[in-house]
């Protein structure tokens, strides 16, 4: 087990991203789908930090800082929305929220 290279980190991050995406597609509960979105954002963060280290640029880490903040903001608003939705419809299952359709 040698020292991990940039490639290792990138593949790791890519896999994480794909798992998150798969979760968004596969899960039926909006809340869990949202958790999977968080995984995807985190995957991007991992790439950023890895790049930041291997290009010797702190700027990437600053961007991660922004991403974390924005993610927190989105979680706050999104959860508020989901709670309101739950209050009205008593569910957060994706397939039960399909009044708007073709």
């Amino acid at each position, binding site marked *: 087990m040698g020292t991990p290279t940039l490639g290792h980190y990138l593949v790791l991050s890519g896999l994480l991203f794909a798992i998150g*995406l798969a979760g*968004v*597609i*596969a*899960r*039926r509960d*909006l809340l869990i*789908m949202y958790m999977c979105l968080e995984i995807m954002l985190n995957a991007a963060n991992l790439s950023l930090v890895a790049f930041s280290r291997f290009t010797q640029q702190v700027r990437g880490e600053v961007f991660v800082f922004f991403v974390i903040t924005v993610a927190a903001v989105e979680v706050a608003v999104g959860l508020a929305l989901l709670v309101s939705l739950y209050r009205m419809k008593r569910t957060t299952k*994706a*397939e039960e*929220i*399909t*009044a*708007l*359709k*073709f």
Partner: protein
Amino acid sequence: MAWLLLLAPLSSAFLVWVALRRHPRASQAVSITASLITFLTALGIALGRIEAPASLAWIDLPGLRVEIGMTLDALARLMLLMVTGVAFLIHVYSLGYMAEDPGRGRFFGELSLFLASMIGIIVATNFVMMYIFWELVGVSSYLLIGFWFEKNSAADAARKAFLANRVGDFGFLLGILTFWATCGTVAFHPEAARALAGNWLAPIVGLLLFCGCVGKSAQIPLHVWLPDAMEGPTPVSALIHAATMVAAGVYMLCRIFFVLELSPEALSVIAWTGGITALVAALIATQQNDIKRVLAYSTMSQLGYMVLAVGCSGTTAAMFHLTTHGFFKALLFMGAGSVLHALHHEQDIWRMGGVGRKMPLTFVTFGIGAAALSGIPGLAGFFSKEEILQVAARSQPVLFWMAAFTAALTAFYMTRITLVAFLGQPRTDVVRHAKESPLVMGLPLIVLAGLAIVAGYPFFGIVRYLGGQEAGENSLLVPAASLTAVILGLVAGAIGYGRASREPIAIPLFQRKFYFDEIYDWTVLKLQEESARLLSWIDQWIIGFVLVRGGAFVVSLGGEVLRLVQAGNLREYAFVFALGAGGLLFLLFGR
């Protein structure tokens, strides 16, 4: 000054639309003044008192410069004079014809818009400007034909006209784009087309541009809208079918002749389209009973003549016939309108009879128009038709014989409707109580009848104005053949219909207009069915598979798939999104 041509009717249309729709008197006044101003301006231009203005840049971007300007050469001046003159007379006539219509304010506004767009086509200096006004003519004629939109038939007719024109315009637009792409400019300049000379694209460009004419000038196979367009008020029929909209196609062909002449193939397609249209329309006209439909088919037939002339490189002949035809066809339509006005919109000639005695002025003027259209020597139609036949005889002998036969048919059906409608005994009570139309409708008739008599003579100067006849040997065969044809037609008509009170001949093929409508209806129906099937297929499979409801087949594929493709389900949305992203990646890296 010359800008008045466009500004006067445009501002009239705008004023009526914004403020005066509810005030018929005011909008009549505004609209008639505007058309008078345009006519006077056109007169001033024709007399050389008004010069063409400098062009303004309308779009000025690197790579594309479109100017808005005015071409005022002989071609345009003649057309301007004819269009504005006829339009003015039609405005005056409409005062009487539309006097009782509650919506006439709107009517006059739409007339002004139509006039403005027509003038735009005439003076256009480049393809883009012409296309803009071309489309605008389409829109405003849509409004005018559908003027009585309460009637379902009018709404349908308007839609039909619109659709047929769109088909033609699609080709026209592609033609313009191709021209621009090859020549690098959109201006009407013979030098501009140099890049096309000898290019394999030349016939394609020519034919694509011709598509626009096929739609607007009602050539086969896009002619079906024109007879139905009779649903509009009669002044509209006169305006659209006589002088202006349908003539726009022929005018356009003359204007862009510098492109067409680069390819003999395109020219012969054009000539044949015109010849066939002329013949088929004349055949249909012999068996129609609706007076306005007869006139509509005869218009189509005459337009076929003009297109034929262009196809035989006889632009002068085409424009000459266009002008004289504009006069006598407007006259015929307004005469017919006058009859309809008196007979409370009875259009069947077999329910008229003896109208001539009740309405002498209308009868005399209509008769002059009919004689001019039939090509009786001494009247305008004779001279111009003669020109076209000469041109045809020189380059396409087969088409010449077709055209001569058409001339006989023309004389035949004009005799038929004149005899049946105006002579004999009144066949209904409405006719017995008919009265001559008011003077405001009569005056335009008189003016046009005068023009229908004199416009053809050399002293009137139309041909000279256009720069003289096409060079070439004039054969004696032509006048002989055409005279024989006219006489044959007249005699046949007189024998067949002199004393008839019922239709003596019945040819279903002609009555049913060669079954064009049936064929189209069937095709459209099929198309609709097929596209409905296609749409529902898309709905079920593509949209259904990706994001909407599943159908029975989805069930058969398995309930699992069904669950995956639920309607409005966010999970599929996410899946589609991911597929899209995957597709992008595939396109970038998969190659």
